[in-house]
């Protein structure tokens, strides 16, 4: 029997080779595709696992804190903490902490923004002038947003004199020349304050160089030897209360300390006469985008003392006055400029807090409200409210409004005035017990470094070339504008007890001291990745927290940054309109991706299996079909049906085994080339897979063979032909031929139909998958990861489908060889014969492709995939199928020319 099988294989080498090639392609495809899918799935799962956990698993906020926008988009806003001042009680926090499964519950109690006293002395060496009186004028220009916003600041004067008494002139006596809001000079003109700084020059003596002292009335400055401009720095610092123990468990905050000591668990504020004295950790980093340019201008004011004499009699009130007119009338010459960046400004703040920083007011800033138009968020401008800064109750607010707040407002500002006025004007003081560097906080996967980090600075990037150019390729950062689009993270951290000192009604007004906590960040125990157990643990904990506390709960595990497009209008002071991308947080991305990958993987494997099986079955049936007469003869000669079965399947299995051996080499080579990194034993599965595929696919054909009838031997040709009409054209003849061989036509088209349907479904699912997961950082990354195996899958599916059709065309040529040659003998050209055969194949292929594409659409839409990608990919798959059919038909048709003419006289 084996000899018979081998003899048959040898005799039909081409046939055997085609079949073997088909099994080879099918087996290798199946093995490589499953490996590719497994590899990709493992890679994706690895990516997802490593990216699964952001800073924490659950975000707890006060009930109602989720905005409609967040709910609608399934997102958490980037600076979700801003605008939340309290709302969660200590009791609720402890309930969260005690929730089963919760390992960390780290609260943040936003108190508000303070402006502690900070002075920056800017040396003005240009003012170190010769004898006599010299008047210098300064123009301060503030900038923000990568220099696009510019607005004028103070315009102080420095008066340098040799006469100490001159500085005692009331008009020249120094007072805090802080800029008034909104226009510095105009308000200053009408104020009691003088924007003058008076320096007395001390000539060199006793070996000492020329020295300048600032206002001899302040004797401690007598040792200053340089002229400097004392600049009051208004740098907003957000104060927040934390639980040091939970914060350490969550973020190892103590490891970020660069100086001082960490906060103690029970550390609290001290109630002083003026107000609370609060221990704080100070951030060493500021992420503010701000700059200050100081233009130093000399004037042509007389140096002989006449100016001071005139100013000695100048009134202090009323504007404009002759004195101011006089001063402003001098010609100026810029003799130098100094530029200060935000780092220098912040350093002044840090230095100021090295002692004890004082802050007379606390400011709360509300969240930005967005409109949503065509998917683009538009922040709503809030009208300026000067009373938020000055006037009203308490201590009347700040003496002068911080200049940087002149720009466009997107947030409502609320002032909290001190209540404790033992000294006449209460304030809070901050004791810097330690400094922390936020950049030293343990990092997380950059893919899941969602903007949920409490200490991460807010940032937005340009979304179009114009915006990127305006920002000089840099991200948009918070500015010194308290009501700007972006806010800074907390700079000052105290304990919850310390924060209570600020929010207590005994000290500052307007706080909800009963519910001081703004958010709670929760980690759940036993969460290892996007596996079912971990997911359930997080979900259970989240549900319990919500049930027990009624607070708003967001599961952040498995989130990914999702860029949101924000259209910012032009600002008041020069920043052009900007289109920005800001990373908000899309929840559940990992689960979405896992689900999509799993579904896609499963469908891919199923479809590959189906296509492979159909191809092989088609090939097997073709083989059996071509040997029907032989099998009939054997039945006539007394063979048992099961012997026929054995003969038929023996050939298929034998070819399968041979294909498997060759496939081993091919699989190893392709695996290395495609970088699949599969273990050798997995690749070796090509051999048993090849045999299994051939056996499985051969069962039906072998059963068919065994059920043949002895009468099959009597068939003159292997098909019964019945032409019902006389075709007029070649196409008509092709159509008639197809109709006369319906069974074979259907079989051939079935393979291609299945392939194209699989292709359309696959491509639709892939497109939809990419649509689902795109739009988040994690999703975009995974999307790129899975494209590799997608391309392989689609390519191989097409190859198999085309091979099936080509196989059928080849068989058709072989079976109809006599007929085709007879046509040639009767005058047909080779080209016409080839056209006939290829037209048959093309009609079959086109019909199968169109039906396959329609099936792909039906299944894709039935699976709930979006219509556009499904329709587009089905159309592409259909066109691809027709193209493949053309190639698969044309190539074998060319071989018609090689049919020997003698066949016309030979037996069928």
């Amino acid at each position: 029997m084996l000899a018979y099988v081998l003899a048959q294989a040898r005799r039909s080498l081409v046939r055997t080779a085609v079949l073997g090639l088909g099994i080879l392609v099918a087996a290798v495809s199946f093995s490589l595709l499953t490996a590719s899918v497994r590899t990709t799935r493992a890679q994706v799962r690895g990516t997802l696992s490593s990216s699964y956990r952001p800073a924490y698993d659950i975000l707890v906020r006060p009930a109602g804190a989720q905005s409609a926008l967040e709910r609608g988009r399934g997102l958490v806003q980037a600076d979700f903490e801003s605008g939340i001042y309290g709302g969660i009680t200590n009791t609720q926090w402890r309930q969260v902490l005690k929730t089963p499964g919760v390992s960390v519950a780290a609260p943040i109690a936003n108190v508000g923004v303070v402006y502690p006293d900070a002075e920056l002395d800017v040396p003005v060496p240009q003012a170190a002038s010769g004898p006599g009186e010299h008047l210098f004028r300064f123009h301060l220009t503030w900038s923000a947003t990568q220099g696009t916003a510019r607005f004028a600041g103070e315009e102080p004067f420095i008066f340098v004199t040799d006469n100490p008494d001159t500085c005692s002139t009331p008009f020249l006596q120094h007072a805090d020349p802080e800029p008034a809001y909104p226009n510095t000079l105009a308000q200053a003109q009408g104020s009691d304050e003088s924007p003058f700084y008076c320096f007395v020059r001390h000539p060199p003596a006793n070996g000492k160089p020329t020295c300048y002292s600032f206002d001899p009335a302040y004797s401690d400055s007598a040792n200053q030897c340089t002229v400097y401009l004392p600049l009051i720095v208004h740098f907003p610092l957000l104060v927040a209360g934390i639980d040091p123990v939970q914060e350490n468990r969550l973020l190892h905050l103590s490891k970020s300390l660069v100086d001082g000591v960490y906060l103690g668990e029970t550390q609290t504020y001290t109630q002083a006469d003026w107000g609370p004295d609060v221990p704080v950790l100070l951030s060493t980093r500021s992420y503010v985008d701000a700059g200050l340019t100081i233009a130093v201008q000399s004037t042509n004011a007389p140096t002989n003392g006449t100016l001071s004499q005139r100013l000695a009699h100048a009134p202090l009130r009323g504007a404009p006055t002759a004195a101011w007119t006089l001063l402003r009338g001098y010609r100026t010459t810029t003799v130098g400029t100094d530029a200060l960046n935000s780092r220098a400004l912040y350093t002044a703040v840090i230095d100021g807090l090295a002692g004890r920083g004082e802050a007379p007011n606390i400011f709360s800033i509300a969240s930005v409200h967005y409109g949503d138009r065509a998917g683009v968020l538009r922040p709503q401008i809030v009208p300026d409210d000067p009373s938020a800064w000055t006037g009203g109750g308490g201590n009347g607010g700040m003496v002068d409004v911080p200049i940087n707040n002149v720009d466009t407002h997107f947030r409502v500002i609320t002032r909290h005035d001190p209540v404790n006025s033992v000294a006449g004007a209460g304030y809070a003081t901050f004791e810097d017990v330690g400094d922390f560097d936020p950049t030293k906080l343990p990092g997380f996967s950059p893919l899941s470094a969602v903007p949920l980090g409490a200490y991460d600075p807010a940032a937005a990037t340009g979304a179009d070339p114009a915006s990127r150019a305006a920002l000089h390729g840099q991200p948009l950062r918070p500015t010194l504008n308290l009501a700007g689009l972006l806010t800074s993270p907390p700079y000052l951290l105290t304990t919850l007890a310390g924060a209570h000192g600020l929010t207590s009604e005994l000290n500052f007004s307007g706080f909800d001291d009963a519910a001081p906590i703004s958010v709670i960040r929760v980690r759940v125990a036993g969460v290892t990745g996007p596996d079912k157990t971990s997911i359930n643990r997080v979900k259970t904990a989240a549900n319990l927290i919500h049930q027990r506390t009624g607070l708003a709960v967001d599961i952040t595990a498995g989130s990914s940054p999702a860029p949101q497009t924000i259209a910012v209008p032009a600002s008041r002071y020069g920043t052009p309109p900007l289109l920005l991308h800001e990373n908000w947080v899309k929840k559940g991305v990992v689960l979405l991706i896992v689900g999509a990958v799993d579904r896609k993987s499963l469908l891919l494997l199923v479809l590959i299996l189906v296509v492979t099986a159909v191809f092989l079955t088609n090939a097997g049936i073709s083989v059996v079909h071509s040997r029907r007469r032989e099998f009939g003869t054997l039945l006539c000669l007394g063979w048992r049906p099961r012997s026929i079965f054995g003969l038929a399947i023996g050939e298929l299995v034998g070819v399968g085994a041979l294909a498997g051996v060759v496939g081993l080499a091919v699989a190893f080579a392709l695996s290395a080339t495609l970088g699949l990194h599969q273990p050798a034993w997995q690749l070796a599965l090509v051999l048993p897979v090849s045999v299994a595929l051939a056996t499985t696919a051969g069962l039906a054909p072998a059963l068919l063979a065994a059920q043949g009838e002895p009468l099959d031997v009597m068939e003159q040709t292997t098909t019964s032909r019945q032409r019902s009409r006389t075709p007029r054209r070649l196409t008509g003849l092709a159509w008639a031929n197809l109709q006369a061989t319906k069974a074979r036509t259907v079989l051939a088209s079935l393979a291609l139909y299945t392939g194209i349907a699989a292709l359309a479904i696959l491509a639709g699912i892939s497109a939809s998958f990419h649509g689902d997961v795109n739009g988040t950082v994690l999703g975009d990354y995974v999307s790129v990861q899975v494209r590799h195996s997608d391309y392989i899958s689609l390519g191989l599916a097409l190859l198999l489908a085309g091979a099936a059709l080509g196989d059928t065309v080849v068989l058709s040529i072989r079976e109809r060889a006599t007929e085709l040659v007879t046509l040639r003998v009767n005058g047909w050209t080779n080209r016409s014969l080839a056209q006939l055969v290829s037209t048959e194949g093309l009609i079959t292929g086109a019909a199968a492709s169109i039906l396959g594409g329609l099936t792909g659409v039906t299944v894709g839409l039935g699976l709930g995939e979006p219509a556009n990608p499904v329709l587009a990919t089905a159309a592409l798959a259909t066109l691809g199928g027709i193209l493949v059919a053309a190639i698969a038909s044309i190539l074998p048709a060319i071989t018609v020319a090689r049919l020997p003419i003698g066949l016309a006289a030979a037996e069928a």
Partner: protein
Amino acid sequence: MSDGEPPLVDVRQVSKSFRDGSGEPLHAVRSLSIQISAGEAIALVGPSGSGKSTVLHLVGAMIRPDSGRIVVDGADVAAMTGRDLVSYRRTVGFVFQRFQLIPALTAIGNVVAPVLPYDGSRAVRKRAAELLESVGLGDRLHASPSRLSGGEQQRVAIARALINKPRIILADEPTGNLDAETAGSILDLLFDAGLVGVTTVIATHNPAVADRCTRTAELRDGALIESS
């Protein structure tokens, strides 16, 4: 037919129809009855389409009659199924008009083919070689069918039909594709070479074949016209 002895092959009122491509019935055999004795050599003659081949197919159990009975050596062939049917076919040697050699097998391979599933022993191959020798192809044992002439192929087919030592030989136009001289040699084989006692039924429209048979049955339009 010998008196007293039951016929070896008893075809009784057998009818068989086929359907053509358009679905119309084609009555190949109509209520045909014929008895064939053991050892008889009977020629079924008649024009094309008279049902000669169909009778052979019915007797050879390749097809079943629509009605009637076919009793061979007491067994109703028409009712046989499964193993019985296979076993019966092994007792019949069929010679086809177009030889129906298996292209993948050599001459000796084709002769051995009927026995292959049951007995692949050397004895079988030896017998096959002897049969081929007896038909004059002793020196072409390993030739493939494509290298054999029509007459040689038919010789192989005859040798193949004899490998199972059949009781009945059914030959469907065994010389139909052969020239006169070759046909004669084939007929010599059929009638002279080792077929003593073998019942032979030959469908033919060649008078020379009919002349060499002991009896002639004429068929026309599926019916037996004359038997002599």
